[in-house]
């Protein structure tokens, strides 16, 4: 049979006709399109029963009350917990995106031992047993050598059972060097000590205040508890509460304020005293409070019997609005107007702590601002500033100290806090790097770091790194890879924030004390261990008195016992609020005179002579004609933990583009330097230089270069690592001579075209 072309054609036609009449082509077309609707590689989330778990998030310093939506055993989404004090149903960006930290790729999965050079980031997984015995051996060795004081502990904040376990550990081990990371709260802590004689933490009754004076505080930029501040801000809008923001740059807070008053940076203290001048001169201050409950407002006799000028005269002498106007750049008419409005308000409140409060600032500033609150008598009063007692629910028995512990504990702290020079300070961690670098042998031999990220957060990170290089043994308890963990010899990973129990004294800045409970939302995903358990087990491994001081089986038992009767409330409600009703003014102050002291003892003779002058920033004005100021942006986390991917996604393209950070300069400043919007430039300071892009912004004082904080992470997931510049690398600490706190608000800088 010969199959010719024609037959072949017919066959083909037949096949074609048959196909059209069969379901094959049609079904295939349909199925192919359905295939594209859910590619095999497109994840399909599994459905299940939805339920919510209440917890408190520790990702931000505010401590947001959260509820986590779960579908079966997967955590899906974080929302705010209704009724949680302060944040009440809301949460900050970091905490909202917290699920990404849980499931994200930078969650440390197992104990790690450094195998590469310091900071190189090469680690090998080891077992918990091995890791624990390595640390215990190191510690034992040090102790037997009589160098127990060379143990250092760095944590983020002092309060809560976990930092207290570290503190106790250091104490029974025999070291005074338990350190916390700097924050504006350090300033308030000292000011409460010297002006009110109290060991206290600040609470601001912002919801009831009716006039807000903010000396550069980023009230809606992460200052205190972010969600609480946003709600307070909205409340002010609803009630028409005036908010005055003094700041050299139009920040979000300034834009939200009723009035933005541009001010020369660093002159805040002088401005506050200028306002005080008007208030005193026009007799607008709170007579009752000033006359009955304060000291040294008028002239007084010192110990030697010499008469000293009182606060009133000093202020009247020196800070008349014309002078203040010259220094601060704020017109004197404005100073007078604001002072009058402030003093005449029912509950006016003056706040300080720059930006989100990551650095303390000069004690003069805290003093001057707090003196304003004193002048209007708005202390421990509805709508005022409260000195809240430090959380006292942790009432563990005093540990028995052996000889080593006593001897070591009595040695002066490495950072100088609590010494004669800086008696009011409890921690001056920013001084630690210099101390280590200046010594031949590092005064810290073993450093335990938990929750803090000194290698990123401390000023002058290059120096910090150099110091850390010198520490023979660094142990990190990080649950996510951070800059400090990268420098560690050993990482003993803590559970993630959604995998564990923890008491969270929070939220920051609230005028009533609250203790929240973080609890495991999901079972730990990896081979991690609760840091509380790790510390307890380490103590047990040390044996002897140390083991006896940690009588708990595990952390959970420790926490339950510590919270005692409150545990049940916390389990049910998610938090408890210790009884606190502020004392009357006649009992409120524990200074020797039982008064609010306008001029504290340690205010210093020298300042009396010279008056308060702005804190000078580092650098010589000729090489560095501009001044760099860091600023906080609410969409960038500048604390120990960097942005989650979702939060990275919200960062504006005028702050970060690809890997380039933008610095903000006034059009005039840009013009002078020949810079245009978006160009690459080199920002240099006495501490170093970095490649940046220029954002020309009308809302900034000419001569300044503003750099966002929180970028330039050297570790973490690909979504945040190596983007932009860490501003802490470009700025160094400036020591406040009175408090020892870091008073740097900026640094001299130059910006030139790249």
């Amino acid at each position: 049979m010969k199959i010719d072309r024609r037959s072949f054609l017919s066959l083909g036609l037949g096949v074609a006709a048959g196909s059209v009449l069969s379901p094959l082509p049609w079904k295939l077309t349909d199925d192919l399109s359905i295939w594209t609707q859910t590619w095999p590689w497109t994840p399909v989330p599994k459905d299940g029963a939805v339920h919510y778990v209440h917890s408190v998030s520790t990702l931000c310093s505010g401590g947001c009350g959260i509820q986590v939506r779960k579908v079966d055993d997967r955590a899906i989404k974080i929302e705010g917990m209704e009724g949680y004090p302060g944040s009440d149903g809301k949460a900050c960006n970091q905490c909202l995106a917290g699920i990404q930290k849980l499931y994200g790729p930078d969650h440390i999965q197992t104990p790690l031992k450094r195998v590469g050079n310091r900071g190189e980031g090469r680690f090998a997984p080891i077992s918990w047993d091995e890791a624990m015995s390595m640390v215990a051996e190191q510690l034992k060795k040090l102790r037997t050598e009589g160098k127990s004081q060379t143990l250092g502990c760095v944590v983020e904040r002092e309060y809560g059972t976990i930092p207290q376990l570290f503190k106790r550990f250091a104490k029974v081990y025999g070291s005074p060097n338990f350190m916390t990371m700097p924050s504006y709260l350090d300033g308030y802590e000292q000011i409460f000590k010297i002006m009110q004689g109290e060991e206290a933490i600040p609470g601001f009754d912002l919801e009831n205040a009716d006039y807000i004076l903010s000396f550069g505080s980023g009230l809606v930029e992460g200052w205190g508890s972010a969600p609480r501040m946003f709600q307070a801000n909205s409340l002010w809008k609803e009630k028409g509460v005036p908010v005055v923001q003094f700041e050299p740059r139009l920040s979000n807070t300034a834009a939200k304020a009723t009035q933005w008053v541009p001010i020369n940076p660093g002159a805040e203290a002088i401005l506050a005293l200028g306002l005080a001048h008007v208030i005193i001169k026009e007799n607008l201050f709170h007579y009752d409070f000033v006359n009955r409950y304060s000291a040294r407002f008028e002239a007084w006799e010192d110990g030697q019997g010499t008469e000293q000028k009182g606060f009133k005269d000093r202020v009247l002498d020196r800070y008349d609005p014309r002078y203040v106007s010259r220094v601060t750049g704020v017109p004197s008419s404005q100073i007078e107007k604001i002072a009058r409005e402030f003093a005449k308000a029912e509950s006016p409140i003056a706040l300080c702590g720059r930006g989100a409060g990551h650095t303390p600032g000069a004690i003069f500033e805290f003093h001057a601002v707090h003196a304003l609150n004193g002048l209007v008598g708005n202390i421990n009063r509805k709508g005022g500033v409260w000195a809240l007692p430090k959380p006292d629910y942790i009432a563990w028995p005093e540990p028995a100290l052996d000889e080593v512990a006593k001897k070591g504990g009595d040695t002066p702290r490495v950072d100088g806090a609590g010494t004669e020079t800086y008696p009011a300070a409890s921690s001056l961690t920013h001084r630690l790097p210099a101390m280590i670098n200046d010594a031949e042998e590092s005064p810290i031999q073993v450093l335990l770091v938990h929750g803090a990220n000194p290698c990123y957060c401390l000023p002058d990170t290059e120096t910090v790194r150099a110091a850390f290089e010198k520490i023979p043994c660094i142990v990190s308890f990080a649950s996510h890879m951070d800059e400090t963990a990268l420098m560690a010899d050993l990482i003993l990973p803590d559970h993630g924030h959604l995998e564990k129990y923890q008491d969270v004294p929070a939220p920051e800045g609230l005028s009533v004390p609250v203790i929240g409970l973080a609890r495991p939302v999901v079972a730990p995903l990896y081979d991690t261990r609760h840091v509380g358990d790790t510390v307890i087990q380490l103590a047990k491994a040390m044996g002897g008195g140390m083991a006896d001081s940690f009588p708990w089986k595990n952390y959970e038992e420790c926490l339950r016992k510590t919270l005692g009767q409150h545990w049940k409330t916390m389990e049910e409600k998610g938090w408890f609020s210790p009884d606190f009703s502020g004392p009357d003014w006649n009992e409120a102050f524990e200074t020797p005179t039982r008064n609010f002291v306008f001029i504290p003892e340690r205010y210093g003779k020298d300042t009396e002579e010279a008056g308060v002058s702005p804190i000078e920033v580092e650098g010589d004005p000729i090489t560095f004609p501009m001044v760099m100021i860091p600023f906080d942006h609410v969409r960038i986390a500048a604390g120990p933990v960097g942005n989650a991917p979702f939060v990275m996604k919200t960062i504006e393209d005028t702050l970060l583009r690809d890997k380039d950070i933008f610095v903000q300069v006034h059009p005039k400043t840009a013009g002078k330097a020949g810079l245009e919007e978006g160009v690459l430039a080199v920002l240099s300071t006495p501490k170093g230089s970095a490649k940046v892009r220029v954002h020309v912004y009308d809302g900034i004082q000419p001569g300044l270069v503003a750099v966002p904080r929180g970028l330039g992470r050297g570790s973490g997931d690909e979504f945040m690592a190596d983007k932009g510049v860490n501003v802490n690398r470009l700025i160094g600490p400036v020591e406040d001579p009175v408090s020892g706190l870091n008073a740097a608000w900026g640094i001299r800088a130059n910006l030139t075209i790249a």
Partner: protein
Amino acid sequence: MSALEEKTKAVSDGGGFPTLFFIIGLSLSLIVGWIIFPKLLYSKKQQPFDFNHVLHNEMVEDCQSCHFFREDGSFAGVPKLAQCVDCHMDIQGDTEDEAIFVNEYVIPGREVPWLVYSEQPDCVFFSHAAHVKAGGMDCKTCHGPIGQSTSLKPYEENRITGYSRDIWGYNIAGIKKNTWDRMKMDDCSECHVQMDVNQTSVQTEKGACFVCHK
């Protein structure tokens, strides 16, 4: 040249053979399309073990005893292990399937990986509450008389789309005899049009998309 060849040539010249070839081609592709293709398109999978609905139905009130609504209005679907263990802590009867269930799933506490015949694509939002609670429909209308089954049929999976054959229906041409034969969008829409449910779309004057999609 043989006689046959001659014949062929003659026929092909006269046009008889092309018709033959046309018919051959036609029938070949019809056979492929209607018979072989459906067999190739679907892969058969067995359930982890067999399940007897009739047997269980005798012991419970109704379908919702096992396939229940949660408090939040969502539908639990195929029961989880937790529900089954109430009775099946240990082996009750003497079937091999129950033994598999208890030994392989109940004792190790493993969820049974049931293959769900009516599993819709991810883009579908199907509200059981709207149909059963608000609409008063019975299960059979969509799921068929599954309650009367004594064993589970094999699960057939479309090799291209990955979806169950029950969605398109067992008839490859997509023809249905019963309401439960198919579960495509048009089948949902047919009923929605008839019952005048959410016919609020501006574009189609039929059901708005966000009624059944998510």
